[in-house]
């Protein structure tokens, strides 16, 4: 059943990308989780005042459930993410690893890069962080690196832009 031209090399392994993101990214993800929790809390408070039923037990139960789940999320997710998120750029390609429960590795050859974006959300600005998004001609292929130190991100954008200019053709 094996096609003849499968390479002889038994186990080519992709190593992890070389660089971690900024340590402050953990703080950024924590803050983002806290914002989500605050929205949930607002909903809970609103429910407390709107509800006319005499029993307050459902409120305590629901509140306890999301507090435990949300708290675990806010504590575990950022650390987990930080351990997973990595990136590396070579003159030929960009290679990233991201996610926590769902993880993915993405590789895009620089010859197919169309645009390079640097984005800074409010939390990222507060912490001096930035994310870099590299788009190719495929709608499915944007590569985003979150939580880079701003100087690192700027340097990366310059390097990628220079590399993208020297290559021709985007395979559309």
């Amino acid at each position, binding site marked *: 059943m094996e096609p003849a031209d499968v390479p002889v090399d038994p186990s080519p392994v992709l190593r992890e990308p070389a660089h971690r993101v900024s340590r402050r990214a953990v703080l950024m993800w924590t803050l983002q989780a806290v914002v989500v929790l605050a929205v949930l809390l607002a909903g809970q408070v609103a429910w407390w005042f709107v509800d006319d039923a005499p029993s307050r037990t459902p409120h305590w139960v629901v509140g306890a459930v999301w507090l435990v789940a949300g708290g675990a999320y806010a504590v575990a997710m950022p650390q987990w993410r930080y351990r997973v998120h990595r990136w590396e750029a070579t003159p030929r390609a960009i290679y990233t690893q991201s996610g926590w429960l769902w993880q993915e590795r993405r*590789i*895009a050859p620089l010859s197919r890069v169309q645009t390079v974006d640097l984005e800074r959300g409010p939390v990222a600005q507060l912490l001096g962080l930035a994310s870099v998004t590299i788009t190719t001609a495929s709608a499915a292929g944007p590569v985003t690196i979150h939580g880079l130190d701003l100087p690192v991100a700027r340097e990366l954008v310059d390097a990628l832009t220079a590399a993208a200019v020297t290559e021709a053709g985007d395979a559309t």
Partner: protein
Amino acid sequence: MTEGWRRLDARMLLVHPLETLVRFLPALLAIVVFRAGSDDSDRWELYAVPVLVAFGVLRWVTTRYRIADGQIELRRGLFTKQTTTARLDKVRTIDLTAQLHHRALGLAKVEISTAGGQHDRLVLDSLSVDAGRRLRAELLHRVDPAVTGLPSPTGTPVAVDVVPVDAPPPVGDELLVRLDPSWIRYAPLTVTGLASAAAIVGFASQGLSRFSQERSVFRDGASWVARLSWWVDVLLLLGVVSLLAVGAYVLTFWGFRLTRNRLGTLHTRRGLLTNRETSIDAARVRGIRLDEPLGLRLAGARRLKVVTSGLLREQGGSDWLCPPAPAGVVTPLALRIRPDEAAVSGPLRSHGPAARRRRLTRALVPAGAVAAALVAARLLWDWHGSLLVLVPLLLVGAVALGRDRYRALGHTVTPDHLVSRHGSLDRQRVVLDRDGIIGWKVEQSFFQRRVGVATLVATTAAGAQHYDVVDVPLEQAYAVLAQVSPDLLADFA
């Protein structure tokens, strides 16, 4: 006005009022019905007519297009002038659509798609069929020495490819496939066919419900149906749905013809009432997709689609290279478009026991949940016991589905193509050109990591934008990567 601007065909002046008329037909009917019962003789709705005509004239006067400096420009609007331009080398596909009223006037709507997709679409509504074909030839054959040798296409358009509507394909064009009327038997076997049947039923019932005086017909009909035994109902339903699916198939694919010119441009023509011609630039084709939905597979049939950029909205089958047809027709056709025997019909590498377990779990969990709910309903609310018959059916069906989905899973790499197959009810085999792949993803969910499999995603600018090799063992995923993009892996291995 500068050189080279061309207008739409003057006959489009009739098209726009006609379309407006059709769109407001229900409102007009309502007005007529309302009028019948009153003595008011003031025909104020007629004032709309000059407005409509004026709008049409305005559109005709203000819309111009030209081909100049390697771009096609479309200029519209009186107060807000809007100019859309597209570089000629970004033109991917060109659609010529002629609905009934277009055909009566000898017109066709020309839609030009470029790399960017939806918002980069240039629509010329309408040109005469000849002018549309000429424009298409200018746009797609721009690299043809026969065309580039001629004066530049800015002045009077050069007369290339002037074909009467029903003429055979021009000499030199290769006829790849022509619809055989016997293929219509496959229409009820596809989800597309059933969906269009459902759409027709919905449309018809909405239309009929406007005529309230005929409700008694529905009531009589309903009570007549209710008196029949259940298997007659099922047969009736099957019959009606099949008829509708066949009708939709005939409307869409009647006279289907796929040709290829000497530059490799693929050209389809189809439709019973609405004629649609699609031209796909060969340089933009990144592969083909063989579809074998369950129904077609059981009947020994399949269909063929093209993977290309510029057809983001898969508009009613523009990407179809062959409607449902016997495998003995489709497979050789696929081989003529992508002459790679191993990719089109060769054996695939299967994905192993972990993938098999995952397919079974995914089929069994929802079926098990429904079965449990049925049992619970029987025990708690005393539902009718005959429903419990469904429980073993559900479970057996789920196992069969999971096994079939596993059998479908497979991939292979040939010197030119990456091939991936998956799905049971909607099985598809994608043959993707290796040089059309512009990036990779290796995705792993929590459960996939535990059993050491991954989903390998090849991203591309064409078709669905990404094609997946599902639940492949991680080392096999990397092997595919290494084989298709060895230079990339060399950097990170």
